[in-house]
C-alpha cells in the first residue's frame, strides 16, 4: 500500500492549531490529534480541490471539500513535490499553489464559495473565513459585522470583524443568507 506519513502537522480549528499527525493512504487522508486522539478522515472522492500555501518556514495544505467546507493542515516542510505526486497518483488531484497576498492592504473583494468567505487583494487571497466560525452576522448602512465563535484554546481569538461595503452592492447580503 502506498502511503505518506508526517508528524507534527497541525489541523486548524477556529484559529487554534491542534497538534497531531497526518497520514495519506491510497483511499483516505487521516489526521489524528495528539491531545485528544480525535481523528479526522477525508476521502479523496469528497475533495473538490487541494492547494498548498507557503507560510513562514513551512507550508500548509488547504483542502476544500465538495460539501463546501475547508480544512487546513499546517506544518509541512520541504515535501511539496512528494505530496503533489502522491495526490496526483493516488487521488488524481492536482495540488496547486494558492498564493497569499502579502501586500498588507485592508481593501479588496469578497467572494463566497461553499461555506467559505474569501477576501482577495487582486488575484491573491488575503484571508478566508469558514462561515461555520461565524456566530452572528449583522448588517448596517454600508457595513457588515461578523462575530465569531470563541476558542479559548487559541492564544488569541478573533472575535469580531467589521467590513465597509460600497453602496448598491446587493450581492453582499450573501453572508446573511448563508446562515
Amino acid at each position, binding site marked *: 500500500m502506498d502511503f505518506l506519513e508526517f508528524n507534527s502537522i497541525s489541523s*486548524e480549528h477556529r484559529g487554534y492549531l491542534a497538534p497531531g499527525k497526518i497520514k495519506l493512504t491510497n483511499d483516505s487522508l487521516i489526521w489524528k490529534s495528539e491531545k485528544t486522539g480525535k481523528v479526522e478522515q477525508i476521502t479523496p472522492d469528497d475533495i473538490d480541490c487541494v492547494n498548498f*500555501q507557503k507560510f513562514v518556514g513551512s507550508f500548509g495544505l488547504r483542502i476544500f471539500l465538495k460539501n463546501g467546507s475547508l480544512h487546513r493542515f499546517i506544518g509541512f516542510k520541504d515535501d511539496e513535490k512528494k505530496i503533489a505526486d502522491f495526490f496526483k497518483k493516488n487521488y488524481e488531484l492536482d495540488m496547486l499553489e494558492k498564493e497569499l497576498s502579502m501586500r498588507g492592504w485592508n*481593501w479588496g473583494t469578497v467572494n463566497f464559495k461553499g461555506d467559505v468567505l474569501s477576501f482577495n487583494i487582486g488575484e491573491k487571497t488575503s484571508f478566508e473565513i469558514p462561515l461555520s466560525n461565524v456566530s452572528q452576522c449583522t448588517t448596517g448602512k454600508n457595513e457588515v459585522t461578523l462575530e465569531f465563535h470563541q476558542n479559548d484554546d487559541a492564544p488569541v*481569538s478573533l472575535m469580531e470583524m467589521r467590513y465597509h461595503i460600497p453602496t448598491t452592492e446587493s450581492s453582499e447580503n450573501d453572508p446573511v443568507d448563508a446562515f
Partner: protein
Amino acid sequence: GKEAEKVRKSTVSYKSVNQMPREPEVKDLKLYVDRKYETVIMPIFGLPVPYHISTIKNISQSIEGDYTYLRINFFHPGATMGRNEGGNYSHPDATFVKEVTYRSLNTKEPGEISAPSSNLNTAFRLIKEVQKRFKTREAEEREKED
C-alpha cells in the same frame, strides 16, 4: 503620477512570503508587529495576514473579567481620511476591513510562562510605537516636499 507611486510603494508590506519574519508568534498564530517592515501580522483562521501600519487608524485595548480585548480600527471610506490615503480610495468597488477585535485570556495555564493576553499587550504597545514613528516620518517627508 510619480508622487502616487512613491506613496504606494511605501505602503506595501511584503513582496513575498519569504520576507515575512520567521518569528514564533507568526507560526503560532499570534499577533506580531514587524518593526522593520512596519506591518502588523494578524492571525485570521489559520493564516498570518499582514496589515501595513498605514492602514491602521487607531487601536484600543480593554480588560474585562478574565479577558483582554484588542480592537484595531482601519482606515476606510467614510472615516477621517489620512492625507496620504486618498489613493487607497480610488477603488470605489472595494470592500474594506474596517475593524477587527481579538480576545485573549488573562489567566495562565499551569506551565505557561505568561498569560496568553501578554501577546495582545505587547502588540498594543508595539503598534502604537510603530504608528508613531510612521506618522512622524510621514510628516517630515511632507515638510521636505513643501
